[in-house]
């Protein structure tokens, strides 16, 4: 019998995240039948998009009251109920802000193993690879349990389409106990940049940026590259940019295809957050900086000259392409 696993669907701007489609594609290549669990206001449970990536079944979870969908306790209970209704005992999610809350709640409910930041999962011998010690080592675990949970590293597996015709199953959550947790409200930050977790390209700045205003140079360049802007701990501690932009040990762990580090010396702690990037390019004046020594490419130069030039040439290129 074909093995079956659930995938918790995260969305952005009303679409399924690319990184989630990557997890679905990964499972499909392993001949695992995917059952998607969707908590969404959008009707149709993303059937079209999920179908295009080979999902077999979609459980579209609905709540008795709208507010329950915003309560993490209700959400976890609802997914647990839906998993039981679907006969799914293995659930994949992501190591994202959403996954960091939902997956451990579920694992705790079922008293089941959970491994976060997974790169590879073998459902035959139940082994899983993850990172440990700030990415300096890779750990292989064996998990045992009636239920199993995995938080995948975002963007580690890329999406590959494969059409299927999924069955859409509306599911009504029954759980009524909030367990002492009440949702009050949500505040969006003023800077709505791109999601660093999802970004394929990240351009980051550190001490070399000298102040917060100069980060505008990176934002300008990021617009041309469709990149997200990150920062080192120094830039955050100096108050130049908000903590939400921090890449590193105590910030975000990102996994883009390209990481451009501008004026970042490259501490061990910073590498802990970006060392898995596909290609690393350092722009720095100091040839001895660890970032320069551990990059794929380095450009020894003044970022205040290089980055605006890059932005300008990318802009000219884009215009050239349009008129061509």
């Amino acid at each position, binding site marked *: 019998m074909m093995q079956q696993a659930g995938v918790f669907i995260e969305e952005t701007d009303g679409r399924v995240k690319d990184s989630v489609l990557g997890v679905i594609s990964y499972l499909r290549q392993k001949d695992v039948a995917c059952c998607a669990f969707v908590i969404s206001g959008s009707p149709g449970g993303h059937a079209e998009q999920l179908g295009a990536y080979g999902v077999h079944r979609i459980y579209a979870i609905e709540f008795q009251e709208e507010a329950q969908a915003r309560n993490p306790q209700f959400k976890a209970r609802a997914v647990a109920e839906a998993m039981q209704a679907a006969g799914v005992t293995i659930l994949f999610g992501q190591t994202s802000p959403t996954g960091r809350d939902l997956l451990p*709640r579920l694992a705790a409910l079922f008293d089941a193993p959970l491994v976060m930041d997974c790169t590879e999962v073998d459902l035959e011998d139940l082994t899983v690879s993850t990172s440990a010690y700030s990415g300096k080592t890779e750990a292989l675990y064996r998990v045992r349990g009636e239920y199993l949970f995995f938080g995948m590293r975002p963007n580690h597996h890329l999406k590959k389409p494969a059409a299927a015709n999924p069955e859409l199953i509306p599911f009504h959550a029954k759980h009524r106990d909030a367990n002492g947790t009440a949702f009050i409200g949500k505040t969006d930050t003023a800077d709505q940049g791109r999601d660093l977790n999802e970004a394929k390209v990240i351009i980051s700045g550190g001490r070399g940026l000298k102040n917060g205003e100069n980060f505008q140079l990176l934002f300008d360049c990021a617009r041309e590259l469709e990149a997200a802007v990150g920062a080192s701990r120094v830039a955050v501690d100096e108050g130049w940019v908000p903590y939400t932009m921090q890449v590193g040990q105590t910030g975000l762990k990102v996994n883009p295809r390209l990481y451009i580090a501008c004026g970042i010396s490259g501490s061990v702690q910073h590498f802990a957050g970006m060392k898995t990037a596909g290609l*690393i390019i350092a722009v720095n004046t100091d040839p001895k900086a660890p970032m320069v020594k551990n990059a794929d490419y380095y450009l020894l130069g003044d970022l205040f000259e290089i980055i605006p030039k890059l932005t300008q040439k990318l802009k000219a290129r884009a215009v050239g392409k349009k008129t061509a």
Partner: protein
Amino acid sequence: MRIYVCVKQVPDTAASIRVIEGKRIDERMTFIINPYDEHCLTEAAKIRDARPGSEVIAVSLGGPSARDILRSALAMGAERSLHIQSERPHDAMETARILKAAIDLDGKPDLIFTGRESIDSCGMQTMFRLGALLQIPVLSNAVDVDIQEGEAFVSTEAELGSRLQYSLSLPCIIGAGRGLNTPKYPTFPDIMKARKKEIRTLDLQDLRFEPSASSMELLELRTVAEDRTPRPIEGDPDTAVEELIRILEQEARII
């Protein structure tokens, strides 16, 4: 108010990690208190100071290095501490059971803090398991905490830096995120005072708990090779930027 703070010893982030027998690390190195736990201690001390008669109790599981970091926790404001002695590794299911048993043995918590994750194994789950065992609410990645009568108002950081606000009934567990506060590091007198504070030693055998039917076993640990060979992008700024664009297009394939 009785506030428990779970703290963990982790290898100094700057230290290089040496793997022994493919399964564990060479522990002859400096251990530090998990950075997120410093936010916990700072927040716990602040809450305690606003409520006369409150106390902060640090709890740690592990060998001699756990005892060392409990000393740091005491210097950062905890009144006393519990050291659960163990030399062997424990998975997340077991760790949560051990912490619960130790806290049960010591007293009734009003509030429990943990870091949102430990920077060594990054399991990100102990607080949720502890909450399920104690049947109390949990939130992690907290960036703001306000304790009121019988209730904690907690803001957490979510997608794209947005913030979510919740209320939790007390007792509850809060996982500290980095935005919660600026850690208050101990002064010399704090360190001296900490020497006289209590570290209560608990043996695993003294703690009662039902084992989990689930397990996570570490099979192998291997050092990740640093395999990047840096190549220069040379020439005057114009030439260098042209070359950079070529790399973005032909190698990174992002434009």
